[in-house]
């Protein structure tokens, strides 16, 4: 790979159960993004990458990338596409924009993630259908296997095999939701205790409602530029230092390598660490936004991103090593658990958070002290795919 690529700014809509259409959300995020980056206008955008998972079901709309172009007045003359990789669609869009710029195809790209998931109450089952067909519809979705029971079984197996405790799961949720209490864009802005999590509705045991991310409307955008162009508009960028992905020819339950480990995350992380020159991630990473779609997910990720030995993820949170002042500040944004999870927008928002932490543009209550390196991670579907990107402040 050739050219350095930087995130030079971005913007966010309020996330939640929004009184807004899919197109409203696109326009809000686009305005916030261009408002954030002085020196970049819609006319500068050569590439547009839109992360969005199910507009066909949630908003009854296809061919959404040109719709984004039209609504925001951008005329991409190099590349335009929507990415669909379930819950990692936002990071997939970001990764393609990075690749296109790094490869010299274009200099300036807009990445926009958007999802409108909340339908009127009487149509909730329609929205849930769009979540239940993420796994193999014919052989897994048909058994009611949408995300909560699926990740509940990951939690059950992890507890069974490694002794992870119910309290440790709740510690993840309490930590992240309490960060979100200080995030004006988050869906859930209330401090939550460990007991609150354990006492919440037992949705899919052993997971309770507060172990789960939300059904969320929201969008977020980023501007990416080649180093040469970025230097013209800003002195502050989040430089993308590494990006990896892995899938082991698996999607349905029988073909996954494990129900309690995600070796694909290890492969993806090793690719990113290698590109970034990271030898010891715990020592070298300052801030991470990892895919806590459920509390158990973050615990498995501590392990399979290579931060602790297998089975010690629960202890990592219990010992405060993922707290704001811990070894790696994990999910200071509030995570999916606190911010909600508008599928295609999540990875975009995570990357924006890393950039905002680098430039100190977050409230003091959830600010990481002087971060220099960051990571974002997303899983998708049955955790069959893992996507990891590393970033650095002040490089190259």
């Amino acid at each position, binding site marked *: 790979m050739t050219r350095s690529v930087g995130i030079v700014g971005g913007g966010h809509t309020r996330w939640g159960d929004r009184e807004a259409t899919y197109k409203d959300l696109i326009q809000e995020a686009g305005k916030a993004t261009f408002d954030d980056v002085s020196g970049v206008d819609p006319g500068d955008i050569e590439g547009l990458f839109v992360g969005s998972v199910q507009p066909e079901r949630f908003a009854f709309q296809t061919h959404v990338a040109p719709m984004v172009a039209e609504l925001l007045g951008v005329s991409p003359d190099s590349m335009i596409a929507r990415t669909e990789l379930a819950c990692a669609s936002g990071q997939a869009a970001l990764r393609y924009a990075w690749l296109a710029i790094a490869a010299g195809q274009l200099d300036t790209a807009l990445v926009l993630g958007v999802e409108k998931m909340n339908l009127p109450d009487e149509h909730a089952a329609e929205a849930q259908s769009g979540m239940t067909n993420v796994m193999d519809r014919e052989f897994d979705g*048909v058994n009611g296997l949408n995300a*909560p029971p699926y990740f509940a079984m990951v939690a059950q197996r992890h507890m069974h095999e490694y002794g992870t405790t119910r309290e440790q799961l709740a510690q993840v949720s309490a930590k992240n939701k309490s960060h979100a209490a200080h995030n004006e864009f988050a869906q859930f802005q209330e401090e939550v205790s460990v007991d609150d999590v354990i006492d919440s509705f037992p949705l899919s045991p052993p997971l309770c409602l507060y172990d789960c991310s939300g059904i969320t409307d929201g969008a977020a955008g980023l501007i990416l530029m080649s180093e040469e162009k970025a230097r013209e508009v800003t002195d502050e960028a989040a430089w993308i230092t590494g990006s990896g992905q892995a899938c082991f020819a698996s999607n349905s339950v029988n073909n996954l390598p494990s129900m309690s480990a995600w070796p694909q995350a290890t492969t993806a992380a090793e690719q990113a660490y290698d590109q970034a020159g990271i030898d010891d991630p715990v020592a070298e990473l300052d801030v991470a936004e990892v895919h806590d779609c459920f509390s158990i997910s973050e615990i498995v990720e501590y392990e399979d991103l290579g931060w602790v030995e297998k089975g010690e993820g629960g202890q990592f949170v219990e010992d405060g090593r993922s707290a704001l002042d811990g070894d790696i500040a994990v999910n200071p944004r509030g995570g999916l658990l606190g911010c909600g999870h508008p599928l295609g927008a999540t990875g975009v928002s995570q990357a924006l958070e890393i950039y905002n932490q680098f430039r100190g543009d977050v409230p003091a209550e959830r600010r990481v002290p002087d971060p220099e390196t960051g990571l974002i991670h997303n899983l998708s579907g049955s955790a069959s795919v893992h996507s990891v990107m590393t970033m650095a402040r002040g490089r190259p």
Partner: protein
Amino acid sequence: MSDDRDAVELPDTIELPRLLDFYELQTAEHTGIHEFYERLHEGRLSTTRCSDCGDVQFPPRIVCPECHCDDLEYVDLPGEGELFAFSMLRAGAPLGMEDEVPFVTGIVEVGDVRLSARIDGAEYDDLAIGDPVELKVVEIDGPADHERVFYRFEPR
């Protein structure tokens, strides 16, 4: 402009289209793995094995993912297995399953295959990892032009 506007009539409800009910259409007219469903009609859970390299797949296929041979044969799976993991769907059911919640869903090991399945005839609190379970076949009443079936498991 005339004051009399034409009214556009939309139905209050739209019948659940057959492709939104999660159960695949099962006959040779619709799917290359119809033999899987034909055997299931007879009460046999089966899957495909590559006649060239011997790879056993699940879910059943029409092309071997290991060697891309398209000569696959059906082999029966055991009708008894062990519960590997389980949870419940208490809310958030998709279309067509809203009236069925709460229910137990799980992962069952049958021979060398690990598959997800509904667990009937048991409450969550009564189950444990490793419990013996056995196959049951259910008939699917719904919007299709043929009789459909599917597999579930129940405590043995």
